[in-house]
């Protein structure tokens, strides 16, 4: 089946035009997944690569993935950023094998082809042969055989890249809401505190749905509910850009209603858990707007989180239709006191694969992925928060509207919108 044909076939499976039903097949179809790698991760999107603070000095590099494509992101001698596909132009070997380092050039181990910091080919051993014999043809052009370059842009030290030659500028892609949000998070120089990673056994889209789902927070994660980190009863909501590519969910500590009682009425206990050491629940104000929780996602592969004083980025790396990796980069600010660093480290117990407010997500995604396999005729249901038109702003937390927003942009990019699709 051709690539276009799979999307054309799957396009007909949407039961409704407002994305309030999601066919289970979309999490499991291998041909669709290959098409996602092309149309989304190698398409007209900006993928999150790293933070500039991870590559502060000239020559610093990190290896990463955009979709499934290995990529090197580096800082050149002139201080500018560069990114290129980490695959030798000669035989296709991985060029830079280390996870990180500092280098003036990048040499493939297989035949020692050598590349400059921007990925340009600078050396081919025995290009003229030996003693006049062998060697490359006269017309071999090094300029035409460099590593494939990505376009790189950084906003407040957050580095994104794209494979597309025709693509809007990063700031336009992010839109004013997400741009302002990144400026808020990166309002002063940051300091990298470390990494957490996890491999989740489910389709990558289940995760992008999960981070947009403000309905589950206080229900799946009892810890969030008990300590008021996230309750559906809190004052909060979500904002999206006009194309619903990106998403910010936020809440303040204030309750719209008596959250404890309402959750109890919904069958969720929130008075049985007490901590002997509650330090990790403290909050030292550091943002003018008073919001203690903001979780934002940038299509297709990034999450930026502020959970009280725990700050982190998350990069999603799909690894086939059934699996993805998450890389959490935990950071603070360069002027943090030792006490503030310790508070951030204590609060990082709440996040990641072992986190008090996040470990359940790995389990929930796996439960969905396992039970929906092979159920091609069935769909999941997204009606919480309303049907029909997808608004840019949602002013309550019992909502799945943002998930419908994700699918509306996904479907447009994949050319598999249902007839009469809502945007």
């Amino acid at each position, binding site marked *: 089946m051709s690539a276009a044909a799979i999307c054309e076939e799957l396009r007909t499976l949407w039961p409704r035009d407002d994305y309030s039903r999601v066919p289970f097949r979309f999490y499991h179809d291998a041909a669709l997944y290959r098409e996602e790698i092309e149309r989304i991760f190698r398409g007209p999107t900006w993928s999150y690569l790293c933070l500039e603070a991870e590559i502060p000095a000239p020559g610093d590099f990190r290896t990463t993935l955009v979709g499934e494509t290995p990529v090197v992101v580096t800082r050149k001698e002139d201080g500018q950023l560069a990114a290129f596909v980490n695959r030798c132009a000669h035989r296709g070997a991985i060029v830079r094998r280390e*996870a*990180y380092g500092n280098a003036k050039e990048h040499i493939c181990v297989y035949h020692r082809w050598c590349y400059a910091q921007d990925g340009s080919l600078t050396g081919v051993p025995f290009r003229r042969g030996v003693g006049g014999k062998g060697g490359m043809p006269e017309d071999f052009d090094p300029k035409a055989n460099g590593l494939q370059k990505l376009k790189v842009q950084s906003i407040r030290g957050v580095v994104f890249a794209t494979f597309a030659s025709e693509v809007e500028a990063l700031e336009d892609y992010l839109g004013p809401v997400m741009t302002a949000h990144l400026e808020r998070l990166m309002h002063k120089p940051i300091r*990298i*505190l*470390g*990494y*957490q*990673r*996890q*491999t*989740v*056994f489910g389709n990558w889209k289940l995760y992008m749905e999960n981070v947009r789902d403000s309905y589950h927070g206080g229900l*799946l994660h*009892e*810890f969030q509910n*008990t300590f008021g980190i996230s309750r559906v009863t809190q004052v909060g909501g979500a904002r999206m850009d006009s194309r619903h590519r990106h998403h910010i969910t936020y809440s303040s500590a204030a309750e719209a209603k008596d959250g404890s009682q309402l959750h109890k009425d919904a069958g969720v206990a929130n008075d*049985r*858990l*007490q*901590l*002997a*050491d509650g330090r*990790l629940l403290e909050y030292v104000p550091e943002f003018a707007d008073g919001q203690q929780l903001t979780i934002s996602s940038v299509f297709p592969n990034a999450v930026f989180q502020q959970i009280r004083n725990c700050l982190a980025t998350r990069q999603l790396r799909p690894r086939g239709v059934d699996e993805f*990796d998450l890389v959490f980069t*935990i950071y603070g600010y360069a002027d943090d006191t030792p006490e503030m*660093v*310790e508070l951030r*480290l*204590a609060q*990082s*117990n709440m996040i*990641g*694969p*072992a986190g*008090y407010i996040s*470990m*359940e*997500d*790995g*389990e*929930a995604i*796996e439960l969905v992925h396992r039970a929906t396999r092979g159920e091609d005729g069935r769909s999941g249901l997204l009606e919480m928060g309303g049907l029909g038109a997808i608004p840019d702003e949602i002013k309550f937390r019992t909502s799945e509207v943002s998930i419908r927003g994700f699918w509306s942009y996904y479907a447009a990019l994949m050319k598999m919108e249902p007839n009469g699709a809502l945007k």
Partner: protein
Amino acid sequence: MDALPAVTALLADYCAHLDADRLEQWCELFDESASYRIVPRENRAQNLPAAILHLTNKRMITDRITVLRTAAVFNIHVDRHIVSAIRVLEADEKSASFEASFCIYQSDQEGRTKLFCTGIYEGEVALGPAPRILRQTAVVDTFSIPALLAVPI
């Protein structure tokens, strides 16, 4: 003095309690001032302070178990710790520091087993009639955690 028998016996209790879901008894192996951390090898290599779990006193260690018992939702499983190459690095009358290699297999309700984690324990033990853990750091080689890590390792 030869601290190896005491360290070995304490580690055996440590693993037996975790594998048998005696998490409250596992907590009691720690001194009041003890720290318990799970550190990704990549953070150690880059001298970065963040951890997967960062519990800096016994109250925080106990809280971890309280959360698992009352609030958390995680994969239903059985752990099996295999510990080997236990080495005492320094020891005096009061305490001993040690290293030990570990691997942990996880089995699900259908009896299927996967390697969950490998790494090295770096710890310190208070010696005496009832030895206690002063410091336990699990530096994990498997730092891309499969699915999730709920029960301590």
